[in-house]
Protein backbone atom coordinates (compact mmCIF):
# COMPACT_ATOMS: atom_id res chain seq x y z
CA UNK A 1 0.00 0.00 0.00
CA UNK A 2 2.46 2.66 -1.05
CA UNK A 3 0.76 4.34 -4.00
CA UNK A 4 -1.81 6.87 -2.84
CA UNK A 5 -3.76 8.24 -5.79
CA UNK A 6 -6.34 10.97 -5.87
CA UNK A 7 -9.43 10.25 -7.96
CA UNK A 8 -11.75 12.95 -9.32
CA UNK A 9 -15.45 12.13 -9.13
CA UNK A 10 -18.24 13.52 -11.29
CA UNK A 11 -21.96 13.15 -11.75
CA UNK A 12 -23.52 10.16 -10.09
CA UNK A 13 -20.21 9.00 -8.58
CA UNK A 14 -19.87 12.34 -6.79
CA UNK A 15 -23.43 12.06 -5.52
CA UNK A 16 -22.99 8.44 -4.35
CA UNK A 17 -19.75 9.06 -2.49
CA UNK A 18 -20.64 12.55 -1.33
CA UNK A 19 -17.17 13.71 -2.43
CA UNK A 20 -15.71 15.34 -5.53
CA UNK A 21 -12.36 13.59 -5.02
CA UNK A 22 -11.16 10.65 -2.97
CA UNK A 23 -7.68 9.40 -2.13
CA UNK A 24 -7.17 5.66 -2.59
CA UNK A 25 -4.19 3.63 -1.44
CA UNK A 26 -2.92 1.14 -3.99
CA UNK A 27 0.12 -1.10 -4.24
CA UNK A 28 3.07 0.23 -6.21
CA UNK A 29 2.38 -1.63 -9.44
CA UNK A 30 -1.36 -0.98 -9.44
CA UNK A 31 -3.33 -0.85 -12.66
CA UNK A 32 -6.64 0.75 -13.61
CA UNK A 33 -8.47 -2.50 -12.81
CA UNK A 34 -7.01 -2.54 -9.29
CA UNK A 35 -8.22 1.00 -8.74
CA UNK A 36 -11.74 0.06 -9.83
CA UNK A 37 -11.77 -2.97 -7.53
CA UNK A 38 -10.62 -0.86 -4.62
CA UNK A 39 -13.24 1.82 -5.32
CA UNK A 40 -16.02 -0.76 -5.56
CA UNK A 41 -14.99 -2.22 -2.19
CA UNK A 42 -14.74 1.15 -0.54
CA UNK A 43 -17.97 2.52 -2.06
CA UNK A 44 -20.35 -0.39 -2.72
CA UNK A 45 -23.08 1.85 -4.26
CA UNK A 46 -20.73 2.38 -7.25
CA UNK A 47 -21.45 -1.18 -8.36
CA UNK A 48 -24.99 -0.12 -9.34
CA UNK A 49 -23.74 2.18 -12.09
CA UNK A 50 -24.17 0.97 -15.66
CA UNK A 51 -20.49 1.38 -16.52
CA UNK A 52 -17.46 3.02 -14.96
CA UNK A 53 -14.45 4.06 -16.98
CA UNK A 54 -11.23 5.59 -15.76
CA UNK A 55 -9.40 8.51 -17.31
CA UNK A 56 -5.70 9.01 -16.68
CA UNK A 57 -4.26 12.43 -17.43
CA UNK A 58 -7.36 13.38 -19.41
CA UNK A 59 -7.49 10.28 -21.61
CA UNK A 60 -9.62 7.15 -21.39
CA UNK A 61 -7.45 4.35 -19.96
CA UNK A 62 -7.51 0.59 -20.53
CA UNK A 63 -8.01 -1.76 -17.58
CA UNK A 64 -4.37 -2.89 -17.64
CA UNK A 65 -2.80 0.56 -17.70
CA UNK A 66 -0.28 1.11 -14.88
CA UNK A 67 -0.90 4.03 -12.55
CA UNK A 68 1.74 6.49 -11.41
CA UNK A 69 1.90 8.70 -8.37
CA UNK A 70 1.33 12.00 -10.19
CA UNK A 71 -1.32 10.89 -12.63
CA UNK A 72 -4.53 12.92 -12.78
CA UNK A 73 -7.09 10.18 -12.37
CA UNK A 74 -10.83 10.53 -12.87
CA UNK A 75 -13.75 8.15 -12.65
CA UNK A 76 -16.05 8.47 -15.68
CA UNK A 77 -19.63 7.26 -15.21
CA UNK A 78 -21.83 7.01 -18.34
CA UNK A 79 -21.69 10.36 -20.12
CA UNK A 80 -24.83 12.25 -21.06
CA UNK A 81 -23.83 15.52 -22.70
CA UNK A 82 -25.67 17.21 -25.50
Amino acid at each position, binding site marked *: MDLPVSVLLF*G*ITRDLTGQSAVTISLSQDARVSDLLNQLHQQFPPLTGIRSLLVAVN*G*EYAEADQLLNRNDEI*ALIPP*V*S*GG
Partner: protein
Amino acid sequence: MIAITIDPIDVAAAMTYLQSDQAGAIDLFLGIVRNNTQERPVDRLEYEAYDRMAITEMQKIADEAQQRWPIIRYAVIHRKGILKIGEMAVLIGVSTAHRADAFEACRYIIDTIKKTVPIWKKEVFIDGEEWVNAHP
Protein backbone atom coordinates in the same frame (compact mmCIF):
# COMPACT_ATOMS: atom_id res chain seq x y z
CA MET B 1 -14.01 26.90 -32.05
CA ILE B 2 -14.46 24.56 -29.10
CA ALA B 3 -15.72 25.75 -25.75
CA ILE B 4 -17.35 24.85 -22.48
CA THR B 5 -19.16 27.77 -20.94
CA ILE B 6 -21.27 28.58 -17.91
CA ASP B 7 -22.73 31.60 -19.68
CA PRO B 8 -25.56 31.45 -22.23
CA ILE B 9 -24.38 30.32 -25.66
CA ASP B 10 -24.03 33.22 -28.10
CA VAL B 11 -25.56 31.93 -31.33
CA ALA B 12 -24.93 35.12 -33.27
CA ALA B 13 -21.23 35.05 -32.43
CA ALA B 14 -21.00 31.40 -33.50
CA MET B 15 -22.71 32.18 -36.80
CA THR B 16 -20.39 35.06 -37.49
CA TYR B 17 -17.45 32.79 -36.79
CA LEU B 18 -18.76 30.08 -39.15
CA GLN B 19 -19.17 32.46 -42.08
CA SER B 20 -16.56 32.48 -44.81
CA ASP B 21 -16.53 33.49 -48.45
CA GLN B 22 -16.02 29.84 -49.38
CA ALA B 23 -18.98 28.63 -47.30
CA GLY B 24 -22.17 27.88 -49.20
CA ALA B 25 -23.81 25.93 -46.38
CA ILE B 26 -24.02 26.16 -42.62
CA ASP B 27 -25.74 23.55 -40.52
CA LEU B 28 -26.41 24.57 -36.96
CA PHE B 29 -27.67 22.13 -34.35
CA LEU B 30 -29.03 23.47 -31.08
CA GLY B 31 -29.76 21.22 -28.11
CA ILE B 32 -32.32 22.78 -25.82
CA VAL B 33 -33.78 21.87 -22.44
CA ARG B 34 -37.32 20.66 -23.01
CA ASN B 35 -40.12 20.38 -20.54
CA ASN B 36 -40.41 16.62 -20.31
CA THR B 37 -38.52 13.32 -20.53
CA GLN B 38 -40.55 10.24 -21.31
CA GLU B 39 -43.73 12.08 -20.34
CA ARG B 40 -42.29 13.12 -16.98
CA PRO B 41 -42.32 16.91 -16.42
CA VAL B 42 -38.82 18.36 -16.07
CA ASP B 43 -38.05 21.34 -13.86
CA ARG B 44 -34.43 21.89 -14.91
CA LEU B 45 -31.25 20.16 -16.03
CA GLU B 46 -27.91 20.31 -14.26
CA TYR B 47 -24.85 19.83 -16.44
CA GLU B 48 -21.44 18.98 -15.07
CA ALA B 49 -18.22 18.57 -17.05
CA TYR B 50 -14.69 17.31 -16.56
CA ASP B 51 -13.59 20.40 -18.43
CA ARG B 52 -10.04 19.53 -19.35
CA MET B 53 -10.93 16.13 -20.74
CA ALA B 54 -14.20 17.29 -22.29
CA ILE B 55 -12.30 19.86 -24.35
CA THR B 56 -9.79 17.21 -25.42
CA GLU B 57 -12.51 14.77 -26.43
CA MET B 58 -14.48 17.42 -28.31
CA GLN B 59 -11.30 18.39 -30.14
CA LYS B 60 -10.76 14.75 -31.15
CA ILE B 61 -14.28 14.59 -32.54
CA ALA B 62 -13.84 17.83 -34.48
CA ASP B 63 -10.50 16.60 -35.83
CA GLU B 64 -12.08 13.35 -36.95
CA ALA B 65 -14.93 15.27 -38.63
CA GLN B 66 -12.39 17.42 -40.45
CA GLN B 67 -10.72 14.27 -41.72
CA ARG B 68 -13.99 12.93 -43.05
CA TRP B 69 -15.66 16.05 -44.49
CA PRO B 70 -14.31 19.20 -46.16
CA ILE B 71 -15.19 21.49 -43.26
CA ILE B 72 -14.42 25.18 -43.56
CA ARG B 73 -15.15 26.13 -39.94
CA TYR B 74 -16.76 24.44 -36.96
CA ALA B 75 -18.17 25.58 -33.63
CA VAL B 76 -18.70 23.17 -30.76
CA ILE B 77 -19.99 24.88 -27.63
CA HIS B 78 -21.38 23.11 -24.59
CA ARG B 79 -22.89 24.90 -21.64
CA LYS B 80 -22.77 23.61 -18.08
CA GLY B 81 -24.47 24.52 -14.82
CA ILE B 82 -28.18 24.78 -14.10
CA LEU B 83 -30.33 25.15 -17.22
CA LYS B 84 -34.02 25.89 -17.25
CA ILE B 85 -36.54 24.89 -19.89
CA GLY B 86 -35.87 26.62 -23.20
CA GLU B 87 -32.19 27.26 -22.47
CA MET B 88 -29.59 26.04 -24.92
CA ALA B 89 -27.24 23.33 -23.69
CA VAL B 90 -25.21 22.76 -26.82
CA LEU B 91 -24.51 24.34 -30.18
CA ILE B 92 -22.81 22.51 -33.05
CA GLY B 93 -22.18 24.48 -36.22
CA VAL B 94 -20.39 23.45 -39.39
CA SER B 95 -19.76 25.45 -42.54
CA THR B 96 -18.87 23.77 -45.82
CA ALA B 97 -19.01 24.54 -49.52
CA HIS B 98 -21.90 22.10 -50.08
CA ARG B 99 -24.84 21.23 -47.89
CA ALA B 100 -24.57 17.45 -47.62
CA ASP B 101 -21.20 17.76 -45.91
CA ALA B 102 -22.54 20.32 -43.42
CA PHE B 103 -25.47 18.10 -42.41
CA GLU B 104 -23.38 14.95 -42.11
CA ALA B 105 -20.50 16.51 -40.20
CA CYS B 106 -22.82 18.34 -37.80
CA ARG B 107 -24.75 15.20 -37.03
CA TYR B 108 -21.60 13.17 -36.61
CA ILE B 109 -20.26 15.66 -34.09
CA ILE B 110 -23.36 15.82 -31.90
CA ASP B 111 -23.92 12.05 -32.06
CA THR B 112 -20.34 11.35 -31.03
CA ILE B 113 -20.28 13.99 -28.30
CA LYS B 114 -23.13 12.15 -26.61
CA LYS B 115 -21.06 8.97 -26.59
CA THR B 116 -17.58 10.01 -25.51
CA VAL B 117 -17.35 13.48 -23.98
CA PRO B 118 -17.21 13.56 -20.15
CA ILE B 119 -20.23 15.76 -19.55
CA TRP B 120 -23.07 14.64 -17.31
CA LYS B 121 -26.67 15.71 -17.17
CA LYS B 122 -28.97 15.40 -14.18
CA GLU B 123 -32.67 15.67 -14.88
CA VAL B 124 -34.44 17.35 -12.01
CA PHE B 125 -38.15 16.59 -11.85
CA ILE B 126 -40.76 18.02 -9.54
CA ASP B 127 -40.52 14.88 -7.42
CA GLY B 128 -36.99 13.57 -7.83
CA GLU B 129 -33.86 13.64 -9.90
CA GLU B 130 -31.76 11.31 -12.01
CA TRP B 131 -28.34 11.27 -13.68
CA VAL B 132 -29.11 10.42 -17.30
CA ASN B 133 -27.78 7.03 -18.54
CA ALA B 134 -26.22 6.22 -15.16
CA HIS B 135 -28.29 3.15 -14.35
CA PRO B 136 -28.89 0.00 -16.37
